[in-house]
Structure formats: structure tokens, C-alpha cells
């Protein structure tokens, strides 16, 4: 996968919860195309009209708090979010995003340095974040274990390989 990503930014505040990312009343939808229609609907109903493939989400602390609904990560992946950079993530959202192969990086103070409508570049390997003026922030590099999942496009393909190997052995 590409390690150097460039995207336009959509900035949000602290404690953006899963109901804002994907409201409960749409959780019954199961097809990705349907789920994609409601990304960030609770925070900004116009979001899906504005977002383009490869764009970034920038947020404060505790992004994705609340429900375990994987729809929250699925919908952001489905609209093509390239990376989410937040000061911290809620635990279940963080796992869900990684499992789907959606890069999520923790970066202190990022919400004070990047606003909506900017263009930034991130090196997924080093965690360095740049704008046209140069390096503006340093995210925590992803652990080897997590990078391995992201590089494989999510955990499903890894588990599939693991199960196929076991089948061959037995």
C-alpha cells in the first residue's frame, strides 16, 4: 500500500461519538453502498456531498467513542477516507478501523494545528505530517502488528490465510 498519503482535511472536535459518525437508526442497513450514504450524518448531514476519496479526518480526543457498531468505521472507509488523525481514539472504533484496513493515527495537538479545508501529507511509516510550509506534527507511528494488518488491507485476509494454512496442515 501507499505509505505517503495526501488529502484535504475535514476537522472535528473532541468526543465525536459513533452516533454522530453513523446514527443508530441506520444500523439496520447492511450493504456497504447503503451504509456509505450516512457518513458523519449526525455531525454534518452534508458531509457525504463534500467528501472526496482520499480526504482526511482530523479530530480531537476520544474520536469514535460510544457504540461498538462497525458501521462507523465501514461508512468512513466506504466514502474513501484516506486516514483519520486524532489526538486519541475510542478503543473499539480504533480496532474496527484497523480491522478494515483504514489507517488511524494518534497525534497530540493535531486539532490545534490543522483546520478544515487544508491539504496535508502524512507518512504512514514515520508518522510525520506535513503541509506546504513543511513538517507540522509528529503522529505516533503505528505498531508493527497494526501496520501488518493495514498493509494487508484489513484483518479478514490475514485470518483467511491463517485458516487456509491450518487446513492444509491438517
Amino acid at each position, binding site marked *: 500500500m501507499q505509505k505517503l498519503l495526501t488529502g484535504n482535511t475535514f476537522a472535528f472536535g473532541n*468526543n465525536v461519538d459513533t452516533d454522530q459518525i453513523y446514527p443508530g437508526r441506520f444500523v439496520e442497513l447492511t450493504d456497504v453502498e447503503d451504509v456509505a450514504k450516512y457518513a458523519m450524518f449526525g455531525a454534518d448531514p452534508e458531509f457525504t456531498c463534500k467528501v472526496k476519496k482520499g480526504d482526511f479526518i482530523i479530530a480531537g480526543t476520544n474520536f469514535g467513542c460510544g457504540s461498538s457498531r*462497525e458501521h462507523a468505521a465501514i461508512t468512513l472507509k466506504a466514502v474513501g477516507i484516506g486516514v483519520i488523525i486524532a489526538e486519541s481514539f475510542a478503543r473499539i472504533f480504533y480496532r474496527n478501523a484497523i480491522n478494515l484496513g483504514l489507517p488511524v493515527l494518534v497525534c497530540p495537538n493535531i486539532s490545534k494545528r490543522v483546520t478544515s479545508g487544508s491539504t496535508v501529507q502524512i507518512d504512514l511509516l514515520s508518522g510525520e505530517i506535513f503541509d506546504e510550509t513543511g513538517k507540522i506534527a509528529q503522529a505516533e507511528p503505528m505498531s508493527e502488528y497494526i501496520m501488518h494488518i493495514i498493509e494487508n488491507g484489513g484483518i479478514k485476509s490475514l485470518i483467511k490465510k491463517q485458516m487456509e494454512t491450518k487446513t492444509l496442515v491438517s
Partner: protein
Amino acid sequence: MHAIEKLLAKKAGKTSVKAGEIINCEVDMAGINDLYLQTIRSFHEMGGVKVHDPSRVIMFLDHYAPASTIMQAQNQKQFREFCWDQGIDLLMDIDQGVCHQVLVDKGLSYPGEIVVITDSHTTTHGAFGAFGTGVGATDLAIILATGKLWFRVPEIVKINFEGKLPHGVYAKDMILHAIGALGADYAVYKAVEFSGSTLQHLSVSERMALCNMSTEMGAKTSYIQPDDITKAFLKEKMARPYEIYHTDADFVYADEISFDVTKLTPQLAAPSSVDNVYDISEFIGRHIDQAYLGSCTGGRAEDIGIAAHILKGKKVASRTRFVIVPASKGVLLESMEKGYVQTLVEAGATFVTPGCAACLGTHEGMLASGETCITTTNRNFPGRMGDTKAEIFLGSPAAVAAAALMGEIVDPTLYM
């Protein structure tokens, strides 16, 4: 090592573990809710054909119980068929209630075991000394396929509650106060152990409310050291032996905080975040359109009993609706047996099917724009129970029942 670390080490087949380490653990009980058809899809996408161990899988049709749209019905149909095809006997259909309460009612939440459910409030099982944690659909599918899941061993923080609670003040007030003081991200990725002298006076139901709400401070799991209260509660329910782990005396917590509850007043989390907490006195007189008593946090028989005590022989205020959702079939039966249902229905309350109902904003008690609700549930995010312009206050069962009686926010201790 901490009891949680000993538990995780055992399940990972290791002699010791430490915070930050990534381990692969056997999961004792894996639960799936009807919101997450993606679990079954992910299982098949991973190449899954037969579930690793059907006897350790439990399916809950609780969030849409009973289905209120065709799509919900279709999803539930696929869950039932999956259980029948896979030999999953633990199918908890729409008559059973919210996953966490059902597990407890049926004696399936064991001390010293790992419980993983596709529901963020799985931290509830810490009330029994279990390692309960919520995950997404794909993580649960990995358990279906392999019987295991990876975990990062969490740092452990300790929250002590000291002293005896004043009359009319409850575990929900304690935990709202703690979340308000510490913040909604205080325990992100961490395990929270609850301890202190107050716990000796708390029933299992109240302990469950504490552990349940630890999710709202970001906790991965929660823990209360099983004691005589725990053992007495479990004695009648458990079908097999269990192991209780103990924390070594030299264990060092990542953080330790104490709260004195002897002068605690009823608390409210005001819109629109769970850590926006105040003394209830700040909101006295605020009109309430809907009082809602239910959920895996505050829908147990004890909670319904408190409401019956407050409303016995009285009427719900004329411009207020009082919606009650028993957390489970067991809770409903107990509430009927004790006369709570009769009392509350006569007072003007509306009972709906045991389950999650409006707690997550799907059906049975949704809010219109501009309405105000006081509830025993766990979240007051914008749009959580309906329109994003509705306001949700979180409080104790007493605060909710007293508001239903008076039609406005009042100090519940005056009505006990």
C-alpha cells in the same frame, strides 16, 4: 500481577503478561447482537464454514426486539438461520432481553472468564470478576472462526468509593460523578477496577450499573474483586466451577483515585455528553416530556422497584410520558411477581418489550425535536434516542421516576 493479568495470562497459555503486550486469548463466551449482521458476513469472507465452537457462541436478538422494520426482520431472520445451521443452541430470541442481563440471568457470566460481545457495554461483566469487553463485528467473526482474539494487555486504574451512600443516592450517581470528574476519555484502552468500602453496601445490580458505565470513560474492561456478595448471587445460577483470581499485594496501578460518597447528592449528565455532569439541583424545574427507565444500565428489577415505590398510588404527570423497558424477561417476571408492573401501569407508565428499545435510537420511545428526556440509560449523545434536537439527561432510577411523577426534574431524595 493483577487478577485481570492472571486471568489473561491463563487464557493466553502464558505464565505472566504485562501491560502493552499483545496476546492471543481463548474466548470463553462470544455474543453477537442483532445489529451486527456484518459478523456473519465477515465470518464467511474470512473463509469460515463452521463456527469454531458453537457451544461458546450466544446470539441475542435484543436491539430490535421485536423488529419494527422489514429490514430489521430480514436481519433477524438471517441470525436465526445462522444459529440453526451452525448448531448454536444459545439463540436468545426477541422474548429474552438485553444481552448483558440475559447472560447474568442465565448464569453464563463466570468469574475468571473472557466474555466478548458486539456491544460496547460488555464491561458490565466485571461486576462478577469476568473480563468482559465489547468489540466490532469483524473481531467477533475472528472468534467465530478461530475461538480466539488478540488483546493488548491494558494498564489498570483503580477507582475507590469510600463511605455509605446517602438515602436516595445510587450507584448511577456515583459513576456519573466519577465520569464527570475524570472525563469521558479518562480510561481509554485501560481496565478500571472498582473498589472501596462503599461496595460492601452495593448489591450485584448496583455493581453492574457501575461496571456498565465504565465504558463511558473509555474503559476496555472493568473489574470488581468477587466477594461474598458475588458468591452468594452466583451460587444459585452457576452450572460449573469457576476460578477467582487475586491481585498480588505488590501490584502497582497506573492510577488510583478515591471518591468519598457520604455527601454525594443525586447527579445528572446534561446534554450532550456523559461527562457533562452536575448536581441535580442545577436543573430543578426543567420540564420533562419523557421519562425513560430501562437499558443494561438501569433497567433491572431493583430499578423498577424504586420507580414503583415512588409512584405507588400516584399518577405520572399529565404532560409527561413514562416509558419502562425491563432489561430482560427475568426482570419483567420478577417485576410482575413483586407487583411493580401493576403499580406502575396503574400510575400511567408504558411498558415495552424487554430489550434495548429507544436506548440506541431505533424504536419504542423515540424523541421528537425539542423534547426533553430524563433516562437511566448510558448515553446522551445528540440524536441518541431520536431527533438530534432532543435533549437527554442521564440520572438514577429514582431521579427518572420522580421526574415522571412531577413532570419536571426534581430532587428524588424528597420522594423516597
